[in-house]
């Protein structure tokens, strides 16, 4: 197999490596910890990469963002565009604009690779948010938020909010017509908060809209405050993940008390590095070929103009959609008023978010399941939860669609009003219908599980020591559709519901698992 030279070389390498780790160990006593790091097992399932994709796009965001910050001028000072050297964007010549906007124009046209960095930054943000949404859906539908992972669910939701705000503040920095319009709407939403609204906007904007304080403040928030929070929360998120170990889908040889997958070293170290490179690759290809946020076309922000078809970036579309669809209510009495934007802009998102924060505990109540879990649910095994998730995704999609109502109306040649009225009904009916369909679909899929011979869906067939057979389906859910799974293990004990129950002689005889 291996020659003597190879053995000697290996021995040398081993000694060199050990000398290295010894040097560190003598200072930090770290060998035991490092072993656990290198040997750590991470389960292999494609859906667990989504969080990593979010992390990778975050890294691209940070690197490209630092580059942009070296050129951006956070100032509302009015200047007239009249560049004397380099490339000049003719249509803007002679126009009044803020220094901030001018610096973005110069970065786009006069800094080599400046434009691709800007576009990479924006594309990375869109991909980041998409990955976060997908990641969150994966956590929800598979029940990964259950005990002991509620804290990471909460941290994750906070991250989602801050990341969306980070995206919004970044989108506002160029001070172009589109972003200025977005800021105007946000100003009005904050202004509408009962009691404190006007005080709050005057503090944030340093006075009446638009003022000159906001752009430098946004810069501080976008470059410093939010990134600090994101990195801090993400560190906690990942440390907790590390400590708790990752969940996994039920499957051959997997139980609540073991973990099956590949080692961090060398498997995941290389693969995660590779994935990061691939994510960067996609971002830079998009940045090179697909134009994004061409602020020189929108023009500088002026409070008296607006372009039709003003939309926020997609991840805030649902909030914009809610603002569009909300009926024309306002409450006025005793000289006070709760203005319209408050309800769709803050109250509705507030209620939805509260439900999401509380979901791990709502879920416990629904399934009367207070135990800790390391094995995930297949969505079909929890029809009610899956139904709620489907309803939420539907609501989210319809609201996002509502944000583009004018574009839809133009393309389909129907009246804008008709679409809004239709969507007004759809956002109520759609989620209910989605819930029912998802619920029924889960039940059908479960029933298919019960007759593996009639309709084989894969799975594991166990042979018990006395010669009987059962499937992992029987292990994972009881006879009633919505019964809480009884596979949870009390901590540390080797007990594994009826599946593992100390029966080391069990053997799996069929491999393909119906993973989801």
């Amino acid at each position, binding site marked *: 197999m291996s020659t003597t030279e190879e053995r000697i070389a290996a*021995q040398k390498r081993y000694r060199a490596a050990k000398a290295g780790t010894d040097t560190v160990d003598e200072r930090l006593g770290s060998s035991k910890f490092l072993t656990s790091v290198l040997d750590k097992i991470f389960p292999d399932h494609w859906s667990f990469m989504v969080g990593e994709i979010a992390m990778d796009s975050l890294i691209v965001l940070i690197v490209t963002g630092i580059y942009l910050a070296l050129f951006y001028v956070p100032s509302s000072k009015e200047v007239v565009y009249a560049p004397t050297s380099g490339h000049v964007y003719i249509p803007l010549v002679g126009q009044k604009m803020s220094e901030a906007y001018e610096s973005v124009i110069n970065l786009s046209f006069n800094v080599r690779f400046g434009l691709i960095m800007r576009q990479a930054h924006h594309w990375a943000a869109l991909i980041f948010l998409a990955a976060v949404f997908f990641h969150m859906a994966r956590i929800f539908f598979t029940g990964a938020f259950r005990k002991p992972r509620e804290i990471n669910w909460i941290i994750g939701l906070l991250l989602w909010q801050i990341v969306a705000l980070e995206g919004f503040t970044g989108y506002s920095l160029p001070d172009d017509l589109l972003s200025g319009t977005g800021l105007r709407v946000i100003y009005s939403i904050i202004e509408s908060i009962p009691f404190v*609204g006007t005080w709050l906007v005057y503090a944030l904007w340093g006075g009446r809209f638009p003022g000159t304080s906001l752009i430098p403040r946004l810069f501080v928030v976008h470059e410093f405050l939010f990134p600090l929070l994101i990195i801090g929360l993400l560190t906690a998120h990942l440390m907790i993940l590390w400590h*708790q170990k990752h969940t996994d889908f039920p499957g051959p040889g997997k139980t609540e008390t073991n973990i099956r997958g590949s080692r961090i070293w060398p498997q995941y170290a290389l693969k995660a590095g590779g994935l990061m490179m691939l994510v960067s*690759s996609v971002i830079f290809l998009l940045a090179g070929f697909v134009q994004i946020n061409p602020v020189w076309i929108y023009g500088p922000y002026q409070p008296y103009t607006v372009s039709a078809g003003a939309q926020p970036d997609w991840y805030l579309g649902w909030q914009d959609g809610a603002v569009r669809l909300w009926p024309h209510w306002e409450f006025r009495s005793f000289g006070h008023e709760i203005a319209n934007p408050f309800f769709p802009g803050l109250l509705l998102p507030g209620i939805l978010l509260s439900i999401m924060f509380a979901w791990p505990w709502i879920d416990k109540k629904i399934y009367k399941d207070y135990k800790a879990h390391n094995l995930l649910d297949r969505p079909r095994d929890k029809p009610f939860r899956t139904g709620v998730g489907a309803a939420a995704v539907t609501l989210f999609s319809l609201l996002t669609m509502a944000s583009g109502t004018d574009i839809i109306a133009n393309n389909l040649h129907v009246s804008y009003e008709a679409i809004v009225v239709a969507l007004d009904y759809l956002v109520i009916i759609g989620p209910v219908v989605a819930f029912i369909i998802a619920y029924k679909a889960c039940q059908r899929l479960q029933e298919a599980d019960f007759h593996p011979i009639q309709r084989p869906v894969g799975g594991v067939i166990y042979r018990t020591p006395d010669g009987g057979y059962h499937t992992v389906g029987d292990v994972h859910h009881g006879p009633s559709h919505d019964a809480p799974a009884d596979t949870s293990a009390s901590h540390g004990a080797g007990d594994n519901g009826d599946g593992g129950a100390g029966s080391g002689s069990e053997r799996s005889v069929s491999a393909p698992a119906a993973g989801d």
Partner: protein
Amino acid sequence: MTGTLDDNRTPFGRNPRHFGIDPDEPWPDDVPMDQDDTRWRYQGDPKGAKKAERRIAAAWTVTLLASMGLAAVYVDGANTQLAGLCWGLAFGGLGVGLILWARDLMPGHDVIASRGHHNVSSEADRVAVAESLGRGLDPMARRPFLFKMLGAVGGVFGLAIAFPIASLGPRPHRNLYKTAWGKGVRAVTLEGKPIRPSELPVNGILTVFPETDPSDALSPTLLINLGDADYETPPERVGWNIPIDGKTGIVAISKICTHAGCPASLYNVVTHQLVCPCHYSTFDVLQLCKPIFGPAARGLPQLPIAVDAQGFIVAQADYSRAGGAPVGPGFWNRG
């Protein structure tokens, strides 16, 4: 430097289950005891391994070429598409190579280990932590007065340290009720030119600003020449328009949408409706600009205008309550 090949932790799998498994850890009886995680995909297949090596090398060659290409693109004027292509290929080649390397030539796949006691402590430890906490809590609980005092002081001090926040911006007071318009303030165009009524044709629409402070964001106003259209005029708004030939003539309407403050800038001359492109609130100009569709709940305010001695359009006063002021979206003390 004491390691030898017989060491328990050799890199070459004498002890196949050396990875990460603590001998003291409770070992669930469903974890196979003798896994071999030194296997790799092309183990025992030197030809396959050679091919895999070549695939990886090819992927990294792409990166090499693309990096050189990137330098060329930079020197040659930094074309964005070419830069994106080079960058994409460079990252892509590196990534593909790394993943193939791990998949085809590296061990460490498909191992099973105990989760161990990952995040719960023994009962003894739990008792210990509760006791340690009690060491401070009990003496504190014995001094309820100090406890309450601390709460009160904390509250007041909390308010005190909020003062720097107050410097962030002025207090709103009645500022939101005012615009830059006022008695005799001329309406000027974007270029700063004052306007005579005759310059606005029938069904013409023009955005104007107060000459005294054209950049004030609540002041942009629309002059609309309604011609002979039937403009509804309640008694308190009589004389706010500039009649032309005894007809309705020119009216001045706030351009700031009462919904969320975008400029309501789309005008339909047939129906005399103003539409705000932000959330498509629609206002009927002939009926005091009242909202007829969309989320806005209030009409656009009207500015009383007149013609000054030189024949230019001026405001008679700032927007007033009778005209539907304050301008713009609602807030708590708008009332």
